[in-house]
């Protein structure tokens, strides 16, 4: 076999990455063996079907990917900090910005949000788990091994280098002959299947498993946003699945769907990609709107203003999100009519989004606002996201877009939308729900330090890019000359990026510090919350609710506290729970090898792995497993331990 194609040549950086990956792996393996944690890891985590643990694993993976994507970002900002920098060469820079985009969107923002969804949704609707706990584990492991597959591309064979949008014919075998874009099609495909399963799982969970009394219009806003998001997932992801499959056929089996010859259509890829890609943006932003709604209500001590219009605006946004994809390529020459149509649909999204902004502001009005760390991120989101929103309207104007398209102005815009719209939200949600999951709060002082570093540095990093765009600097340029005059603003942006890195290091340090020193929370409701998740003990027992709560209003827990009544009227009885299973993890591993062998066109091993996948799916389908019961006595004992003697 030809080992040459596995190698990535040149760069000391890549050798450094190889060595650090090898060392980290060895370190983890040795550590697990030394502390005799293999059994623990397998029993408690790798085989778990508990939505809370799966959520925690999603978030851990997302934090790791945030680090990886952040290092990519720093390398890009360093390379462009001054004219004619020699830090990265063109090929390496192209790989770095491609993986930065892929990782941040698909392997950071999405899993972070899905992780929060996993932890919180069953709690918010008063359920004991998601509808299909095993499928949930399948989702996670497919996502995880898809992410791993993409990440090893950096050191084995080379990363994708045609941009995260992988436009054809650039991404075709003719112009990208390395295996990089094979990784793209397979890694995204594997994790995409996981996401699609998540979509189905959460729609069913939210529609079928709500506590008695919780009608659709009494669901917390986060639950609403997650429901809508998962409906978008179920409609949008099949498009990606098909597009990636066609891409794989083109690259591995010589089909000609998107190539230049034999009737292939390169623009078809762009259309398919953005038919998925634009809804994808809302998949990460709508849950963020939900998180912000919860946090604003909690920390202004008020119910959400205009609940009904909040729900309807999200529904309208989700519908419009499928009608705007062509605004990503106004410059493809579709003519005035088509461009006008897509301009108008795009600008129309500003209306429901504006409704949400004003409803949040009016929720704050007449409230009593406390500035906790999660609330600070939420409050920072409003003005920053509004800048992203108004520049979005400017970009939506087809004519003007002929001047913004492919420039740093666009880059500035989508960072102004995605960072406050998704990243701040997951950080806020992370701080907000952390005590629920782990039983102690993150330190507020450290949290606020990190916050100010992140907020100020964010603006220093990305605001100059608006001007660079208007100066004519295009995105994805690995270098530029002195005469262009792009130097000073890029240097400023790099300084901001350093500040952002400091902020994120502080944030991670806060997790470490708080784990060691923060006092344990005994109230189980540290923020004086409003929704059902705060009615469970912290940390949450495996069965979530000893007794299924009865819901009468929108903020049931708040109301129960105000009226000093209990949500839990029924007697404790035995509780049915699903068994752990190792099969989803094994399935993920096999998928990983299938993907890897296909990337390198190693047909025999690929066929073996493919058969393995089918065997595993069959084994899981015919698995007879009826779960187990936790006895009433055991539940009572656990509740006593967690809540003191009050039960």
């Amino acid at each position, binding site marked *: 076999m030809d080992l040459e194609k596995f190698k990535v040549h040149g760069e000391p950086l890549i050798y450094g990455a190889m060595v650090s990956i090898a060392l980290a792996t060895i370190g983890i393996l040795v550590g697990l063996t030394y502390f005799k944690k293999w059994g623990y890891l397998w029993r408690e985590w790798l085989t778990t079907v508990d939505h809370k643990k799966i959520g925690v694993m999603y978030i851990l993976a997302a934090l790791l990917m945030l680090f990886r994507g952040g290092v990519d970002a720093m390398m890009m900002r360093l390379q462009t900090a001054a004219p004619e920098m020699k830090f990265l060469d063109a090929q390496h820079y192209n790989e770095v910005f491609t993986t930065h985009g892929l990782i941040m969107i698909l392997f950071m923002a999405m899993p972070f949000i899905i992780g929060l969804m996993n932890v919180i949704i069953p709690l918010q609707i008063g359920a004991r788990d998601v509808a299909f706990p095993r499928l949930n584990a399948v989702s996670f492991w497919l996502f995880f091994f898809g992410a791993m597959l993409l990440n090893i591309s950096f050191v084995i064979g080379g990363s994708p280098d045609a941009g995260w949008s992988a436009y054809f014919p650039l991404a075709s075998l003719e112009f990208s002959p390395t295996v990089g874009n094979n990784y793209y099609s397979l890694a995204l495909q594997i994790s995409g299947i996981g996401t699609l399963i998540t979509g189905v799982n959460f729609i069913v969970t939210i529609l079928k498993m709500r506590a008695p009394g919780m009608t659709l219009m009494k669901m917390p806003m986060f639950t609403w946003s997650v429901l809508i998001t998962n409906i978008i997932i179920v409609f949008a992801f099949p498009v990606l699945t098909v597009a990636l499959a066609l891409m794989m056929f083109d690259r591995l089996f010589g089909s000609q769907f998107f190539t230049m010859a034999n009737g292939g259509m390169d623009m078809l890829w762009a259309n398919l990609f953005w038919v998925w890609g634009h809804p994808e943006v809302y998949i990460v932003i709508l849950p963020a709107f939900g998180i912000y709604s919860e946090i604003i209500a909690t920390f202004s001590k008020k119910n959400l203003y205009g609940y009904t*219009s909040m729900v309807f605006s999200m529904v309208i946004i989700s519908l419009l999100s499928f009608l705007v994809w062509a605004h990503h390529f106004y410059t493809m*020459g579709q003519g005035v009519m088509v461009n006008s149509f897509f301009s108008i649909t795009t600008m129309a999204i500003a209306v429901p989004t504006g409704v949400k902004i004003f409803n949040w502001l009016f929720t704050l009005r007449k409230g009593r606002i406390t500035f906790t760390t999660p609330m600070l991120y939420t409050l920072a989101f409003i003005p920053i996201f509004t800048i992203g929103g108004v520049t979005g309207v*400017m970009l939506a104007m087809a004519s003007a877009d002929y001047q913004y398209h492919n420039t740093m102005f666009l880059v500035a815009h989508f960072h102004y939308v995605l960072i406050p719209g998704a990243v701040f939200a997951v950080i806020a949600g992370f701080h907000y729900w952390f005590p629920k999951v782990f039983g102690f709060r993150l330190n507020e002082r450290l949290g606020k330090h990190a916050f100010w570093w992140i907020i100020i540095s964010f603006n220093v990093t990305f605001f100059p890019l608006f001007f660079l765009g208007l100066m004519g600097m295009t995105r994805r340029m690995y270098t530029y000359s002195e005469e262009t005059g792009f130097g000073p603003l890029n240097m400023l942006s790099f300084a901001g990026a350093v500040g952002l890195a400091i902020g994120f290091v502080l944030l991670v340090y806060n997790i470490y510090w708080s784990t060691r020193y923060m006092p344990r929370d005994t109230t189980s409701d540290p923020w004086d919350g409003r929704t059902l998740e705060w009615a469970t003990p912290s940390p949450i027992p495996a069965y979530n609710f000893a007794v299924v709560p009865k819901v009468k209003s929108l903020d049931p827990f708040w109301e129960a506290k105000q009226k000093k009544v209990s949500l839990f009227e029924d007697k404790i009885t035995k509780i049915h729970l699903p068994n752990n299973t190792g099969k989803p993890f094994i399935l993920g591993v096999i998928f990983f090898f299938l993907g890897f062998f296909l990337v390198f066109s190693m047909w025999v091993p690929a066929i073996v792995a493919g058969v393995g996948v089918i065997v595993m799916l069959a084994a899981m389908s015919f698995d007879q497993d009826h779960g187990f019961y936790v006895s009433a006595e055991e539940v009572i004992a656990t509740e006593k331990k967690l809540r003191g003697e009050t039960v």
Partner: protein
Amino acid sequence: MKKKGPLYALFLSLLFILPGCSSLTVLNPKGPAARTLSDTIILSIAVMAFVLAVVYILYIFVLVKYRAKKSNEGYIPEHEEGNKVLEAIWIIIPIIIVAFLSVVTVKSTHAVENVANEYKDQDPLVIYASSSNWKWHFSYPEEGIETVNYVNIPVHRAVEFRLYSFGTITSFWVPQLAGQKYAMSDMLTYLNLSGDTVGSYIGKNSNFSGKGFAHMEFETLVMTDEDYQDWVKEVKETAPALTEDEFKGLLAAEHLGRKTYSSTHLEFSPPPGDHSEHMSGDGTEMDMHNGGEEHEDNKEIHPSPAPSSQTEFDGNPAPEVEEPLPSSPVEEHTHQ
């Protein structure tokens, strides 16, 4: 006090930017299409600044007035449903703003997708601009000349660029003269562009196209009509003809300096059809001669307007036939 982030950055950025406002290329137009776009952009910035102001004022007011302080300790806000009138206001006003911007968009898009009003009565000069690897080929079917990596056009003259690519999707962009448009391998796209000030303007590919992307620039020289005619004449007399073999060599190269030829590649390597032909599945023929002949006929009826008095550049054509490679450090070998 809480929200100094954006303001702070805005201030910093303004400090940097104010000395060189003319460096904002996009807002410093030198042609009617770019001017329409610049006006559209400035108008949209004004409208959006108003929207931002409303949100920011409300935001600061709410945060200052309703923050938790000693005086309102123990205050528990009342339950508050929405308010139909208020919610209607912030639905209707944005709809009006969006409707207004939609009209502006449709009008300006229509304007730049067609020949600019002041040059409506001219028959446009047709130039084919095609990209291959990381360079641009410009073919003048009427004059029968071809250049690489630079394009000369007469001032005050409607020019119709017909764009296509010999490979990846590229985007043809001369920010000071007009907005960009994609060049693709299987379909012809059209871009109307005119310069109303003599001068040299940077043009580039703005759509990522692989390793050599960062260096894919060309010069657009807007010159007086006389200079242009002289240049065409000189090229016809001095430059070599473009043979098929020579053109194959050009296509294969990754980067090139400037090149000039006294014939075009269109004769032996016709461009793809336009969109309608593409959709019918027959995109191999393109009758570039028709446009050319028509244009020749109309030339006497519509002479080009006199050169602008506000010239910034003497417009020396300088038709270097062969120039060494510009600073393109990319030397690695790629696929062919």
